[in-house]
């Protein structure tokens, strides 16, 4: 895996709508910018070899870093793959839509649900939003949220940006009725 940089972002929200958020809402994302493992190979039919090689390395790298950056027990999580302009979205999807990537995060966070994701192709510095859902029950409405991220200067055309995100709680000042109240 050819790694160029790792960016860590920690958000702390102290107030929302003018009201105090207590405890402070914490969200963290860690993004790795790597060379596209299928760079320059044209249309590759079988992506398995690259996935088997790279996805576990990314999971192993990112999962503990998110937990450390978050600094409190995780309750919601999500992931992202942003592919540079020379690649296919399928390349990014290959790296994140595999248990060989996600299980590192699920194990580190004692989580059980599927990780919601954003997959996108774009130029360096493109803005993307990572969706997050509850870590053991994706129907828990209070934890549906998303995090705006822009990593300047990444991904280059032959790179892929892969990120994991976690939150210590649901939305700050969440107060919507539970899904079950409408069923």
């Amino acid at each position, binding site marked *: 895996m050819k790694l*160029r940089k790792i*960016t860590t972002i920690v958000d702390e929200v102290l107030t929302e709508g003018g009201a105090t958020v207590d405890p402070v809402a914490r969200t963290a994302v860690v993004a790795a910018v790597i060379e596209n493992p299928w760079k320059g190979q044209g249309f590759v039919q079988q992506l398995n070899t690259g996935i088997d090689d790279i996805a576990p390395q990314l999971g192993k790298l990112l999962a503990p870093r998110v937990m450390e950056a978050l600094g409190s027990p995780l309750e919601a999580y999500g992931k992202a793959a942003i592919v540079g302009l020379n690649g296919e979205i399928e390349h990014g999807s290959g790296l994140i839509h595999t248990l060989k990537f996600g299980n590192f995060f699920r194990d580190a966070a004692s989580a059980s649900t599927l990780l919601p994701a954003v997959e996108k192709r774009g130029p360096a510095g493109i803005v993307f939003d990572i969706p997050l859902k509850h870590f053991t029950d994706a129907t828990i409405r209070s934890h549906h949220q998303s995090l705006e991220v822009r990593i300047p200067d990444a991904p280059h055309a032959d790179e892929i940006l892969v990120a994991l995100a976690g939150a210590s709680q649901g939305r700050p000042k969440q107060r919507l009725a539970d899904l079950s109240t409408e069923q």
Partner: protein
Amino acid sequence: MTIKQTVIDMPAIARTLSDIHVRAVRTVVEEVHAEGGSATSTPWKIAASYAVLPNPWLGQGTASNLTDYAAYAAPILAKELGGRLIDHLDGAQNIEAFGKAAVVGLEGEIEHGGAFIHTPYFGNLFRELLEGSSIICFSESRAEPSQSLRVPLWHKTAAATRDYYQSMEVHLPDAPHADEIVVMAVAADGPRPHPRIGDRNTDPAVTLAIFEEGS
């Protein structure tokens, strides 16, 4: 015998970010493993931490005093933002370069941002926390939310050291709102990756005389 006590009138200062109604804090750390196709000798880290808070001077006109609130609010910003940088860069002793910035929401004046970052209530404390001695370089602007800002850094004790001239681009999602200010501190644990453009001590003398015939 009575002991006569002298009471020094120290200005009150905010002790927590909540005291100054900070809405959010974002900390961004970049760890560069390779640049220009070559690995960096050690992963090099550059970090920014910023707070989003209400602009306390809106509607007060251009004759209003900015110093009193800056003296109250800026010290805790320096302490909290500097503290986050120290945590993420593994201690003040590992920090070699620094910078600062302010972004004012559209209803305010850039002068409002300057009141926070260009006065000793922020700069002196940030410098002391990071164990520096240089003047701190800066960036400032007025902007809508969700724009990006590029913030310069230089060496914390030897500002003219060219290898340390560098900058960091920071994205500010959802901030600052029109009635808010972003106050930011930045730091790095080393020079640029692969610095190789000399220094003022090794430069030849370059003047406009180089355009003269025969030179």
